């Protein structure tokens, strides 16, 4: 009965799937018909998606914003997510077809802050499916798209956004054309040497820094070991760095206290913070690995 679902309830709805297509091995892009979410969500924020029809699988699964789809007038109309099939929830999601309903809630989380005030270059470091937030972030910081209510850009935009993108193997890369089209400078690495550098993606960043490149900001998303190396590099070169964490969550909105992670406070003490509401984006200096 909808009078109860009026504005206060707006953060949860059932939306229609517009498309759900494979984009790489075990990787799908799903497009959700949701003008409200599309006009609110900003890069680094996420949505919870419940793929089960009944109560199994029970909980929603968190997915970062990949991009917002706009109509010919530039009005945000839909939201794209890209997901890797891992377990039951994502397997169920991959079987959904266009036209089917999907319960979602969001936008959730803090999202990234604006481009670095002094402009300059930025470096994004993505491991595996952790590449998903960087298309929208790159467009925003390069000034080619705006998200949410942020409207006009303030300060200078970044001149060069370089994405270091690592995956286990070449067939897992997704969105490479989108990144190129958005003007990001993409460097790839694979564990098996099937594409780009044979080794860690952070090796590529290290080499560029050793050669004298000085980005004004680094941003990372991916497996914890990669984030830890990135945080070390950022510390060594004294470059501000934000990390987007992917802790296991049950609710996504701060009620369950599942996704807590130790965060160093300015006074040196550590406190458990909920990745879903106080994150998922944290300053790398505060993240305790």
């Amino acid at each position: 009965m909808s009078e109860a679902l009026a504005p206060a309830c707006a953060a949860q709805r059932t939306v229609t799937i517009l498309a759900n297509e494979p984009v790489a091995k075990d990787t799908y892009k799903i497009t959700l018909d949701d003008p409200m979410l599309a006009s609110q969500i900003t890069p680094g924020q996420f949505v919870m998606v419940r793929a089960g029809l009944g109560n199994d699988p029970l909980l929603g699964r968190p997915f970062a914003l990949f991009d917002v789809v706009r109509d010919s007038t530039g009005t945000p109309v839909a939201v794209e997510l890209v997901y890797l099939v891992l377990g039951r929830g994502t397997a169920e999601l991959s079987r959904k077809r266009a036209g089917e309903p999907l319960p979602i809630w969001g936008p959730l989380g803090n999202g990234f802050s604006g481009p670095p005030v002094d402009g300059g270059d930025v470096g994004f470091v993505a491991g595996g499916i952790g590449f998903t937030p960087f298309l929208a972030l790159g467009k925003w910081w390069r000034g080619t798209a705006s998200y949410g209510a942020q409207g006009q850009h303030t300060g200078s935009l970044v001149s060069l956004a370089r994405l270091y993108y690592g995956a286990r193997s070449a067939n897992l890369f997704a969105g490479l054309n989108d990144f190129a089209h958005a003007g990001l400078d993409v460097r790839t690495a694979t564990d098996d040497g099937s594409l780009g550098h044979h080794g860690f993606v952070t090796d590529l960043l290290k080499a560029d820094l050793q050669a004298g490149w000085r980005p004004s900001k680094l941003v990372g998303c991916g497996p914890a070991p990669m984030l830890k190396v990135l945080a070390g590099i950022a510390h060594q070169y004294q470059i501000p760095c934000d990390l987007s964490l992917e802790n296991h969550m049950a609710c996504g909105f701060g009620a369950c206290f599942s996704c807590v992670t130790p965060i160093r406070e300015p006074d040196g003490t550590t406190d458990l913070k909920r990745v879903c509401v106080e994150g998922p984006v944290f300053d790398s200096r505060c993240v305790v690995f």
Partner: protein
Amino acid sequence: MNVDLSVRLGRLTLNNPVLVASGTFGYVREMTRFLDVSRLGGVIPKTVTAQPRAGNPTPRTVETASGLLNAIGLDNDGIDHFLQHHLPYLRTLGTPIIANIAGENEDQFVSMAAQLAAETGLAAVELNVSCPNVSHGLDMGIDPTAVERLVGRVREACPYPIIAKLTPNVTDIVTIARAAASGGADAVSLVNTFRGMAIDWRKRRPILANDVGGLSGPAIKPLALRMVWEVARALPKCPIIGIGGIWTADDAMEFLVAGASAIQVGTATFADPGASARLLDSLPEKIASLGAGSVREIVGTLRSNRG
């Protein structure tokens, strides 16, 4: 549809029987973007303890078949923080607030209850004598003598209606409920989570960092219903708040006819943040479909098939 939804649980009167369970609704701040909480019968914020507690390491939750296993470990900032930081906000919500407390021993429960007694704007106090993830709470909740004495002492220390939230991890729930009632509890909440575990056999490890946790969600509804029914039959004068896997108005109706005067929505909120408000919307028509004009007319009207 003119259905009277109001219910009485001892000294506690609620506009409707739909509450939200402790530990599944945060401190309510998180929830206002999903539903109009002032419509609920009441809200029960996350358990507070005498001192701040960091809780358990992660992973703290894992999904199981139609259920959720958790070992949060009562992560909270302590009662002083609750009184200063959360209660002033909770008072502004326009819905009855039922504070939920857990002590490591009887004295801690009593002194926390005394602290709450000095505060205005609470509707009742729920005693979490049942958290499976903190050994003391469980030990107390399985001993009828301890439960009776605890409830009695808390009642002396605190004028608010007292609800005892019981653990299902006992051989005979009726014995514990009877003890709570003799101690002077206005109502008993049935039930907290069932102890369980999830295993990754490839790693030969439990999945939860705490090894074991408490099971909740749709999977436990039949178990909770059985306990509510048993207590309702044995103690017809003891008001019961039913908890366990409640998501829809149909779930709530099952608990009401089994003998609960009110219900709490728990894990369903994680999977469907607005579930409690939607359940409330559908409740009047379900009650009317039985030819009743009030919740009270249907509570405990279940008839046994065995005569």
